[in-house]
């Protein structure tokens, strides 16, 4: 069975792009458009990996990440944060919230797929 990935972004266009890349990589994809939906979906669906945009309505990506990483039931789910920010500061925050990786948008499809494969491999290994 292929791994299920929860992609979270408030832009439907970007979400569609990410979805297309992941589907092409052979993954199953579920989506959420804001932080609240991300948490609800994570709870209901227990995805194998989460791709999380930082700038989200309702609840930002950092907070979503931190909430999930503090929860025994979800902390093992790898989270890759996506952001337009390039500052070191943001990067550091991403790591402190427990995110497994941090990618700067726009992300090359190959880079995205490589990061996903790497984290899934680590999670299984």
């Amino acid at each position, binding site marked *: 069975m292929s791994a299920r990935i929860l992609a979270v972004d408030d832009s439907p266009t970007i979400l569609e792009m990410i979805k297309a890349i992941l589907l092409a990589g052979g993954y199953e994809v579920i989506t959420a458009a804001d932080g*609240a*939906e991300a*948490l609800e979906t994570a*709870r209901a669906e227990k995805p194998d990996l989460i791709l999380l945009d930082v700038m989200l309505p309702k*609840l*930002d990506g950092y907070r979503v990440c931190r909430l999930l990483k503090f929860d025994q039931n979800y902390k093992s789910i790898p989270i890759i944060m996506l952001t337009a920010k390039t500052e070191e500061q943001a990067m550091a925050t991403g790591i402190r919230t427990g995110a497994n990786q941090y990618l700067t948008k726009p992300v090359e499809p190959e880079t995205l797929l490589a990061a996903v494969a790497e984290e899934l491999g680590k999670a299984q290994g």
Partner: protein
Amino acid sequence: MPGDDRLSKDLTLADFERFRDYIHQHSGIWLEESKLDSLRISLYARATRIDRVTWDDYFEVLSRDEAEFRELMSLITINETSFFRFPQQFEALRAHVLPEIMGDKVADNRIVRVWSAGCSTGEEPYTIGMALFDSGIETLDWRYEVMGTDVSTKALGVARAGTYPGRALGNLSGEIVNRHFVQVGDDEYRVAPHVRKHVDFGYHNLIKEPYPLSLMGNWDIIFCRNVTIYFRLESTRRVVSNFYNSLNDGGYLFIGHSETLTSITDMFEPVEVGGVFLYRKSPQEKRWHGFSASGPQSLTRPTSAGVRSGRADTASAGPTPGEREEQRVARQERIAQRERTRRAEAEEAAAGASSVAEMLHLARQHFAEGRPDEVERLIGLVLIADCGNADAHLLSAYVHADSGDYEAALAACTRALAVNPLLPGARYILGVIHQRQGDLVRAVSELKKTIYIDSDFALAHLNLGNIYKQQGKFDAAIREYENALRALYANPEGEWVHFLGGWKADVLLRTCERSLIECRKAMGVA
């Protein structure tokens, strides 16, 4: 930092407790500390979803808006569920419970009614529907109805739709999928009409009384496989009592495979069917049981063929009714005695300021260090605080078995198993005692039960192997020695380590290997 993260203040412990208490008050569901993370996620999700800026603000919405309360509860009670979860229970339903219930009914009442309480997204009631269909009772001119209820409207929506993604069917055989599902999309399957037409759904909060008339009564079977996990003791008693009152005489309650009602109520008669523990409403007894289900009343009666009483199962062949009455009186006397002692000794327990968990931990240390008197003293204190503590009874059994007092060890095992019939350690001790007393039939039975509960219990495999070897059943012995080795490699730190009496696991390993070689030689010679 993004500026739209408006609910910026972290949830304080006081906030947590306020929400937890409110949820408990209004749903009966008590969130253990281990569930607090889930509560946090659910609260953040819901509060931000409806744009609440502070926790006070969200609490205010929650307390006046029933719809929001349901939304929050939907999220909190998301449950692991799947089709044919714990298949042994459905086998027990098909092979034993159903024929018994049908046999008890009169000719003009040929209908079986099953209630799946807390049905989540519908997998359980549909599974029941499939099991009933496969039993073929319809072809015998019987009808059946299955009702699923839940507090989550969202889950009920999924249940009513009856459509599931392929992964939800992952553990089912192709044959079951073909028979009971219709593929309706790329990766979507709908429960087939012949199952759906017998299954209905409705909203119901198990803690809200009185129950609607539609649920109150005339059920033959009730499934509620999380009742003791979500609810606190008092709520569980009320829920179970309501189940009792809703069941027909002779009806059955199915609870989770790891749950037990023994310390909750004795209104039901616990019965074992093929390794599964079920609870039966005794058919001879017709009286209203109020909500205080804690009184010492035993309804245990001889059961019909194929179904054995779980309580009588452990030590001796079933007692006569007279003996049972004596046992009941003796038990009441013990309870009263314990109550008298409790007051005197509770202070001592409090003076040590130790929690039950701490005392048990200390007792285990003393046991490991060979101080049985100290262990007994601590167990006594634990049992004063919590007379239904299965771990304390089990530890007591260890101590007695260790000192060769088999009678006391048997009694302690029986008490531990009455609280939790699925304690592998207690089954193992029973098995070893029977083995030492030369009752190999009982020994084999208990050791097999140990393995049934915990297949990695290496010592149980080893002892079974020894018995078979002794009986000249070398092929069976070889199988068990191999299983013991497999279990040793799989789980070198299993619960059975306590029984090694200080020996190292590698000694056990060599013992198994040597016995294996001996059996193979014997087979070669034979």
